[in-house]
């Protein structure tokens, strides 16, 4: 409640503070039903999400080994992270490269395939949705890629390349610093038709169909114009949702790196910000430092999100 009051007084700094407050109170009383509807969710959300996040941000300013009580550290963790920790810089470089490639490609792919599928008749549509979503629904089947890229001559890719004479001896795909990040990107792209994809499919259902007729009358000539001038603007809420999901999933990559490439990866070639965090949080029990990494990652994602949302506002104009 206090935060709400503050937010309000920021847009209208008041000379008669008390009257302002009374008016705010009256306004809040008028929209009582809104608060009643929101209360259950936001109560739970505050306890299990907001409080832990705030606590983690606070912990990033402390030394905390989970055994002794945290001790104040000021900006020590951040200074160490950005100046002294060479491995972290490698992790940042990998993560940015990874996100810059997988983020946009997977985002466009999610929308593109949802859009094609949406035009199919119901039965093939449902089947294809299932097939494209399959990698996301089947748990850790991405381990199949370990088999494909296996470093001996029996790995699918090696045996194919050797049979056709492209290479003479097996390539150590998962141990070679030149290929590791590329393989990670490939697997992530394969997994990418997930949450946003389904959200887009559902979103395409809610686009008002009369808009298309109206568009045809207004001189829209082909499907690409229709996509740009009608579908994309009508889908803006879903596009924003998808953007956040793709940003978080491409910046927070860790699991596939750990399971596919091992931990740590060879010469840190597949090391990401979150694997770095896991290293400090769960292996070295340096929770303050791990929280500092999480905070830095949070800020990177936030900036990316601001840029993306700005860009999305221009869609269809």
């Amino acid at each position, binding site marked *: 409640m206090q935060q709400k009051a503050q937010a309000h007084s920021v847009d209208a700094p008041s000379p008669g503070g008390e009257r302002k407050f009374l008016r705010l109170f009256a306004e809040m009383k008028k929209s009582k039903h809104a608060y009643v509807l929101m209360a259950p969710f936001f109560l739970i959300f505050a306890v299990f999400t907001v409080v832990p996040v705030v606590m983690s941000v606070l912990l990033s300013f402390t030394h905390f080994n989970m055994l002794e009580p945290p001790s104040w550290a000021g900006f020590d963790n951040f200074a160490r992270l950005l100046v002294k920790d060479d491995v972290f810089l490698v992790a940042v470089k990998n993560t940015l490269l990874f996100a810059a490639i997988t983020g946009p490609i997977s985002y466009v792919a999610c929308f593109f395939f949802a859009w094609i599928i949406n035009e199919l008749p119901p039965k093939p549509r449902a089947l294809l949705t299932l*097939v494209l979503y399959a990698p996301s629904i089947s748990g850790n089947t991405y381990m199949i890629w370990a088999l494909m890229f296996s470093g001996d001559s029996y790995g699918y890719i090696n045996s194919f390349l050797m049979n056709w004479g492209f290479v003479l001896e097996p390539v150590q795909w998962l141990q070679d610093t030149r290929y590791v990040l590329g393989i990670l990107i490939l697997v992530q792209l394969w997994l990418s038709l997930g949450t946003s994809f389904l959200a887009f499919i559902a979103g395409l259902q809610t686009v008002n169909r009369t808009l*298309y007729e109206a568009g045809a009358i207004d001189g829209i000539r082909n499907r690409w114009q229709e996509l740009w001038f009608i579908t994309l603007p009508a889908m803006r809420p879903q596009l924003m949702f998808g953007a956040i999901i793709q940003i978080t999933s491409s910046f927070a990559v860790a699991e596939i790196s750990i399971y596919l490439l091992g931990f740590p990866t060879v010469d840190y070639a597949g090391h990401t910000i979150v694997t770095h965090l896991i290293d400090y949080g769960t292996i070295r029990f340096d929770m303050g430092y791990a929280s500092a990494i999480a905070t830095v990652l949070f800020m990177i994602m936030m900036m990316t999100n601001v840029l993306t949302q700005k860009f999305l506002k221009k869609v269809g104009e």
Partner: protein
Amino acid sequence: MKAVIQKRLNRSWTVDILLLVLLAGIATFMAFPLVFTISNAFKPLDEIFAFPPKLFVRNPTFVNFTILPDIFSDSWVPFSRYLFNSLFVAVVGTGGHVIIASAAAYPLAKLKFPGRTMMMSIVVLSLMFTSYVTQVPNYMTISWLGMLNTYWAILLPAFGSTLGIYLMKQFMEQLPDELIEAGKIDGASEYRIFWQLVMPIVKPAWLTLIIFSLQVLWTNSSVTSHKYIYSEQLKTIDYVFGQIASGGIARTGPVAAVTFLMMLVPIVVFVVTQSSVIQTMATSGMKE
């Protein structure tokens, strides 16, 4: 009939065919894990261990499934209890999340009240914070609330998951304001407008949310809850299946069967909800 004609508006056959070819190519690529998991479950042991592995099963058998009762027979908590736990957690967790998150999403999307913008930005920002570091504070909260070793330790965090409210809010935002105004003129309360007017229209959204939530709770609830739940009677089915897998190489057959069975539930839910998504489309298309 009208819908069919409309759909062909602005479409050329050549591009249609090109897109379908592209789709077919990608689909083959993506279907791989599905085919592999299904066919593995029916492989006899010698085929499972064949190297290099074959994608399709040669001599299908049910032996991997028929061993399962034997494996469960010596556990002192009956198998049905694990199954109940999993179903209970998945159904209650998903149902609760969908209702609570939708109820909170409606005012955020369509009503004006002090604090709205701020609450929305908190929701969006919290999606960007990695859960790895919030685990320690979460454990302390759950322990302080006295919910350690109860279903609540899984259910409550699932109710308050951030994904749902954001998804629902984005979909509700698309609804025309006139619709809600019309409801108000007819004298419906905000609660009735939400439940009887808004929720039926955003059916594609909450059907999709059901898939997300159920998938997480069904396949992963023991991963997220192993810190909070230590009574054997409260553990979920994915935990038992993990136990089977930890039996090592000798259990490879049953593990393949179990992987398949675990996948079956989300797939069935997926097929059911996705076909309802299509139905809503058909009906709402007619209304327009």
